[in-house]
């Protein structure tokens, strides 16, 4: 028996609030052999996580495994008493969740938490287990493996924490490792180090693994076999190569088609044709309390165009949007909206200025008041800015819903009754209700899966053509920005490091940081990861993390090309390059990285 895990005809049911049990997983069978990685892919709601939990004999609260067998190491674990089943977890199976931060106790040192499970299972005493853990840290390529266990969770970066989470999962030497979207919440740059660490350790220990994700490019790097799911049913199963290159089922093809296009390929309108800016951010410095996040940032958004803002998490992208909207008042500089300087704080701005510039937040789940009906959510800006009431208002709400491809009937629903993609459409419709000149989109597609996100981008494009709105499109997803934005601003540690027409930014010469971002976007090619993770850039970049407010070039601590003595002491000036490109770097143009 070489199968570590065999699931036969699994049925899981869940009960929505106040309702009856409805099937979530409908008769899925799968098996994972020793040393093999099986990827489960599918849109959100397809039951990926539910199946991976069932592999541990576990169902989320409100769910139950209604039928089927789960064989682990030759035992049917559904037949075991709950106590024995519990004992398996952490020992024979372990689980890595999407957000490592939520799985660590912030008050305890990391090392203690890593050895907690083996200690509990009686695998040895604290000293030997700690020594084994240090060995794991080393294998996972963590910086200073001897001392990292002494740190508290907040003292390491997100990518490092995710790798430590893997160490925690591996500490018992499990036979089966379940990874549930372990890199989805990470930046592309961090994703590489984590992916590589996971893959190496799985190979090294010969562990069987289930890898849950919706990102096909990631799957191409780690999986041996792929199982495609839709609505709780198996669509197709096969070796990675076959699924990626010769999918048999239509649905798999849809998934492949929604994969983001490669960044470099898209061409855009001539920036010279662009008109006067609707938003002009001039030399803005801003922050929270004593903390300065943005320093000396200048960005223009021409009317009816798309300006993409990219950068890793924590670089100040959201802060920029909040400063423009007046939610975080700026300290120095000016924000000019439609030719008129705007007051720093939102409460000092006249309604007309507010109306012209709307903001759409990242998380559609929290951006809509759960206690208001969609009709009221969309109706309020109509009333507030245009004084529409009664029938007129209801009519306009219906029009707005149609504009974002939603049925009119949704007006009477509550946000909780909508899917993630639908909520994001309502979120957009609310911004459109004000009839704005420009919309600040803060990561509007980041929480959505690829197919749904592609739909939202299409919608944004068509709205731009129809209504002539401009967007400041904030995202850490480079491919989306590259295929959508006319101009791109690259932020790093609160400063603009590169800026220009999208084509110029995404073609050489690059700023070293832009180069890093670009080369980190996973490609659908198998074996891509091995090539990219071994470059000197990737090594330098994973050695440190973003530091805001240092002297010199903010990227100096992670830059493979840094000129010591210059880069770490003097901040580089912004230089104009041919083709409207601006780059802030000390390197002579000829030495800037080319692809």
């Amino acid at each position, binding site marked *: 028996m070489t199968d570590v895990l065999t699931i036969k005809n699994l049925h899981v049911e*869940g009960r929505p609030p*106040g309702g009856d049990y409805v099937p979530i997983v409908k008769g899925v069978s799968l098996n994972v052999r020793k040393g093999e990685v099986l990827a489960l892919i599918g849109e959100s709601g397809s039951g990926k996580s539910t199946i991976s939990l069932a592999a541990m004999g576990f169902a989320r609260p*409100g769910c139950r495994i209604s039928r089927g067998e789960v064989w682990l190491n030759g035992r049917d674990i559904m037949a075991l008493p709950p106590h024995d089943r519990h004992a398996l977890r952490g020992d024979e199976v372990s689980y890595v969740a999407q957000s490592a931060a939520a799985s660590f106790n912030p008050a305890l040192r990391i090392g203690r938490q890593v050895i907690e499970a083996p200690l509990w299972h009686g695998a040895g005493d604290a000293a030997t287990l700690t020594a084994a853990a240090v060995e794991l840290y080393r294998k996972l390529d963590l910086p200073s493996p001897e001392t990292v266990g002494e740190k508290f969770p907040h003292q390491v970066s997100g990518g490092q924490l995710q790798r430590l989470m893997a160490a925690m999962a591996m500490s018992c030497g499990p036979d089966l490792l379940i990874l549930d979207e372990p890199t989805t919440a990470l930046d592309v740059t961090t994703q590489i180090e984590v992916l590589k660490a996971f893959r190496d350790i799985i190979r090294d220990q010969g562990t069987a693994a289930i890898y849950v994700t919706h990102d096909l490019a990631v799957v191409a790097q780690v999986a041996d076999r792929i199982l495609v799911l839709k609505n709780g049913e198996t669509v197709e199963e096969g070796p990675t190569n076959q699924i990626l290159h010769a999918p048999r089922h239509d649905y798999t093809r849809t998934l492949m088609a929604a994969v983001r296009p490669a960044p470099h390929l898209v061409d855009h309108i001539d920036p010279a044709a662009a008109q006067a800016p609707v938003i002009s951010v001039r030399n803005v410095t801003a922050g929270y309390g004593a903390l300065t996040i943005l320093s000396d940032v200048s960005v223009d958004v021409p009317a009816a165009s798309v300006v993409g803002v990219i950068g890793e998490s924590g670089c100040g992208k959201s802060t920029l949007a909040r400063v423009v909207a007046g939610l975080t008042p700026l300290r120095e500089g000016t924000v000019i909206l439609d030719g008129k300087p705007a007051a720093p704080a939102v409460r000092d701005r006249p309604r007309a200025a507010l109306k012209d510039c709307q903001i759409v*937040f990242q*998380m559609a789940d929290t951006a809509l008041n759960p*206690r208001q009906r969609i009709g009221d959510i969309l109706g309020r800006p109509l009333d507030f800015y245009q004084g529409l009431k009664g029938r007129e208002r209801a009519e306009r709400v219906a029009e707005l819903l149609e504009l974002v491809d939603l049925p009119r009937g949704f007006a009477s629903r509550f946000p909780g*009754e909508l899917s993630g993609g639908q909520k994001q459409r309502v979120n957009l419709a609310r911004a459109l209700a004000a009839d704005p000149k420009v919309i600040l989109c803060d990561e509007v597609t980041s929480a959505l899966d690829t197919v749904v996100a592609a739909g939202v981008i299409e919608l944004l494009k068509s709205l731009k053509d129809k209504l002539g709105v401009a967007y400041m499109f904030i995202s850490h997803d480079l491919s989306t920005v590259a295929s959508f934005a006319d101009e791109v601003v690259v932020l790093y540690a609160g400063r603009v490091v590169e800026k220009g027409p999208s084509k110029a930014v995404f073609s050489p010469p690059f700023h070293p940081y832009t180069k890093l971002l670009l080369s980190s976007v996973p490609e659908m090619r198998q074996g891509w990861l091995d090539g990219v993770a071994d470059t000197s850039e990737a090594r330098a970049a994973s050695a440190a993390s973003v530091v805001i407010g240092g002297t010199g070039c903010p990227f100096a601590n992670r830059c493979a090309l840094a000129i010591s003595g210059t880069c770490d002491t003097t901040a580089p000036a912004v230089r104009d390059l041919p083709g409207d490109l601006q780059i802030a770097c000390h390197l002579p143009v000829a030495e800037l990285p080319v692809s």
Partner: protein
Amino acid sequence: MSDVSDHGAPRASVFAGLRLTWTAGLAGAILLFWLVLALFGPWIAPHGEAEIISGTTFAPIGEGGLLGTDKLGRDVFSRLIYGVRTTMLLALITTLISFAFGVTLGFAAAILKGWFDVVISRIVEAFMAFPSTLLALVVIGAFGTSITVLVLTVGLVLSTGVFRVSRALGYDIGVMDFVEAARARGEGTWWILTREILPNSMAPLIAEFGLRFTFSILFLSGLSFLGLGVQEPAADWGLMVQENVGGLFLGSSAALIPAACIASLTVSMNLLVDWFQQRQQGETVLEKIDQ
């Protein structure tokens, strides 16, 4: 557009939606029973509130009245029925007062922040530093024992706890994206408070109301027991315990019965609140199922 397909969320009937546990059902029934007695008491009670029906004081159960007589020979059963009215009404009014003050100030502090928050929070903390009974004793001692003073004092003392809860809720909800969206739209404080924050804090506030109501019953009964609350000849459960405590040594249950009633009321209320909170949490867990 694959995500636009319309799945109507299942809606169940009101009763199926309630999903009562048996403890919650029992507690609800007890509360309903007391409520009915409170509303229709005067028509149900066999005797008057202060009417002396027998020469024997502390008559045992079955003799004199249905539940015996008290220290003056009044009917314990009738006084109990009149008492539920006083007890529940006073508890309701004090809880309402504490919510009026606590919620308004708590949310105002959370939204306005700055010096307003600091000043109010420090004042409330100063009040909370005193044991609540002691505080009430001092105030009632200073202003005399009238129902108005009693109700206002207890209401204010209880409002400190409500303030803390509302302020915390206000802070939590105030940083959610939909509130930020309202701020970015240019909405005023009043709109944000009444339309965005308040509707989303209803569930925890209802639970808090139940708990404060219970606490208020105990607190008022305690004050009545100390002779600072409701005054004779009016009937109040706490007062009845105090009046008849001497009878305990004579084998009379006249003090135990109202005490048991207080217990039944507060325990039921607590059970109901527990159920409500569990249900609310259950809902949020269940909403995540189809992710």
